[in-house]
């Protein structure tokens, strides 16, 4: 049974996605929708990792759960990053950086998404309906993140690339 491996891989992809969402939000503080939405989506990805934890235990897999960035970051460090975002917020280059970061988020979300697909197939073959239910619920949310990155790139690219 290799389902434990697939759980580990999916959890790692979601953890990675969450971290990159947190980081992108902090880097693009002056793009206020990005700031707020990345937080919301990062929390969802962290929840996905949580939801995989009991399944990991059953399959004797180990997944790394990090302390949420929501609680973790020290105030001075957060303030420094935020100040940096503010200072660069008045320059045009961050529009291109935003595109680059959204692209990266998109690829990370795609990676997590395809991991959910594989895990879901495994869960079906193993007739593990509990796991399948978790996969279904979490994957829908990861697809939503993927859809958002697509949409946000579509709206940001015309101005970023022609100015």
């Amino acid at each position, binding site marked *: 049974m290799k389902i434990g491996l697939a759980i580990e891989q999916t959890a790692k992809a979601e953890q990675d996605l969450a971290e990159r969402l947190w980081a992108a939000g902090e880097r693009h503080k002056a793009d206020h929708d990005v700031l707020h939405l990345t937080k919301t989506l990062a929390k969802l990805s962290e929840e996905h990792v949580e939801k995989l934890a009991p399944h990991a235990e059953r399959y004797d897999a180990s997944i790394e759960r990090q302390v949420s960035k929501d609680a973790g970051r020290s105030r001075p460090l957060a303030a420094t990053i935020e100040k940096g975002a503010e200072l660069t917020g008045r320059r*045009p280059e961050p529009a291109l950086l935003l595109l680059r970061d959204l692209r990266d988020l998109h690829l990370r979300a795609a990676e997590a998404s395809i991991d959910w697909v594989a895990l879901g197939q495994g869960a079906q073959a193993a007739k593990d309906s509990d796991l399948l239910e978790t996969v279904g619920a979490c994957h829908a949310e990861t697809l939503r993140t993927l859809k*958002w990155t697509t949409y946000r790139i579509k709206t940001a690219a015309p101005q970023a690339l022609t100015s």
Partner: protein
Amino acid sequence: MTEPAPTRSDGARGPADRIAEPWGERTPYGAGGEWPVRVDTNLEKGLSEDDVEWYRSASILHSNGDEIDIAVKDGRIVGVRGDRHSRVNHGRLGPKDLFGWQANNSPDRLTSPLVRDGGELREASWDEAMGRVVDRSEELLSEQGAGAFGFYTSGQLFCEEYYTLSVLARAGIGTNHLDGNTRLCTATAGESLKESFGCDGQPGSYADIDYATAICCYGHNVAETQAVTWMRMLDRLHGSDRPRLLVVDPRRTPVAAEAEIHLALRNGTNLALLNALLHELFANAWIDDEYVAAHAVDREELESTVAPCTPEWAAVICGLDPGEIRAAAELIGTAERLLSTVLQGVYQSHQATAAACQVNNIHILRGMLGREGCGVLQMNGQPTAQNTRETGANGDLPGFRNWANDEHVDQLAEVWNVEPSQIPHYGPPTHAMDIFRYCEQGSIRFLWVSATNPAVSLPELGRIRSILADERLFLVVQDIFMNETAAFADVVLPAATWGEKLGTFTNADRTVHLSEQAVEPPGEARSDMDIFCDYADRMGFRDKDGEPLVKWRTPEEAFEAWKGCSRGRPCDYTAITYERLREEHDIQWPCNEESPGGTDRLYADAEFWAHPDVCEDYGKDLLTGAANEPHEYRALNPDGKAILKAAEYIPPHEPPDEERPFRLTTGRTVFHFHTRTKTARAPELQAAAPDVWAELSAADADRLGVIEGDLVEVASARGQIQAPARITGIREGVVFVPFHYGYWDEGERARGPNGRARAANEATITDWDPASKQPLFKVGAVAVRKVEEARG
């Protein structure tokens, strides 16, 4: 001070009392009855109705669309009278309209164009001012292209003017960056209608008030925002068969005071409450299963989303009692004829579109649409916001067309006789908050602001001022007064306003009015349409045959052009003419060959504009705003039914904490409109509400050691203001500040080293609803502290 107004000849109290009693005397009526006429008049002292000439118009001081006759003597506006034949107001006027006309005659009016030289604005000729605008436009077009241009317009111009602006911006310049300040007031109304019914278009009618057995006001302080519609509701509430009234509002507003059930929830939690109400509708089978099966999609998704949302669950989030929530659900679920109204308490709050959609869902689930007394009114904030939406001056394409549907873009290209590629449609039209973001980044370098005052009305004013002051930005401001925004302008263009120009506009229940030119504009001021046409001429915008792109010069010609653009769309104006509006006073769209008399209610036959080929929008994910692809929408809703959009509650982005324990909400008073540039110039209105205040609950005031009148500081992470405290029936933990007050009339007290910041938006958060992009003025964390004891 002005003289008190004369007593009416019938002995009733005159308009002066309408400050103390904004809604006037009751004229009660029962269900299905005719709302009695009561004509409200205010004329300058010594004048009678026979001494003056009367000109037809309607209000542009709120979205209700009250029809007004303007009184003129010797070329001056000298008063107003409510139109007794109006379907909207039956002769009544609210206090803003009774007194606000005096602003037209203010000596402060802009009467000459201004240009900036050496840092100072100086008077200039139209040729010089427009020359500067055109020179900068041409430079930027060749240097950067259409993306360098942004247009930020209003909810206070006329239909013909918005349409002209829409054509010149979208097809002339070819920029995607055109939006209105309607983004702040009505974007969620439009978005929720698109999400639920496939297309914008107000389902209900004000006449539904005459028939409703239950009225629910969600975040809608109708008494102060649409005073005359509140008079209509009050007259029903005081009539023989009083409708039940449910009010959802953290403040004890005049509306809440009349309610059978008042849910004073924590601001920012509307969706949690609404999901619980829907949970109860399902749990008690208060559902019209047949209607839903025949006319709606996605019931299962909604039902499973609200399944865990019990009243107990919502009670914790909203800070309510589960029993109150159950009682509210019973009121909704058992109503025979249900009318719901929604406004800023929902639209400017957390999860705005998601919450507004749940109100639509209530009506879909109960099959209560398109019948007398059964309607939704997703209200508008500003007077002509409806036209901003219709004409595509608001971040949509004209005629409620779908930017993602190539056929719709082709139709538009045909109407305008341009290549489809000239009309940007590679993404949704840029919304206001992104327009200002692009200005901040320096990629928009030309911003033309017409009839709005972002330096007071947008969130986080410190940020907005720094954007407007940026030297990279060429700022054109077109207005009737020097305001806080115009102070930053490179060119100021003096505009004519209501009563000084001809045109049409449309209210929140699709009622189209004609507004006559009653007097000449002051000095060299010109109508907004003349200014836009002049710009189009000077820029030489052409269609693909080399003919002028803007093919009209008079308002009536523009209206005829707009009718062509509206043809075949829900907002079909094709059978309306100026002549008919002069004879019939008002007509509700759609008005075309099929419905020549207009249409009182949409969706009477559950025929929605939701088919994939006709819908205005393919729908969005309400959490992120991510747009559906056409194929996704086609799979979901192939037959064009209503869509039961579901969304889960998530906590607000900036919850209160130890440092900032209060939830700030901003709002309105019945005596002022927008940033007071007009209403503060009417002495009675100014005297009624001369300065900002901060509302606190008695318990919070106690804890802070604050009594009525003490100066308090309201501070967020963005900025702070100081305001005298008012102790009211507001929910504990919530502080309310009206947003009207800026700095143009502050004089010595203006902002500065020793000045007092008083604009509520100094403190508000830059955050917007993911779907409607409407800024969230009604949820942000603040600290409150006493600064100074009350004087005297």
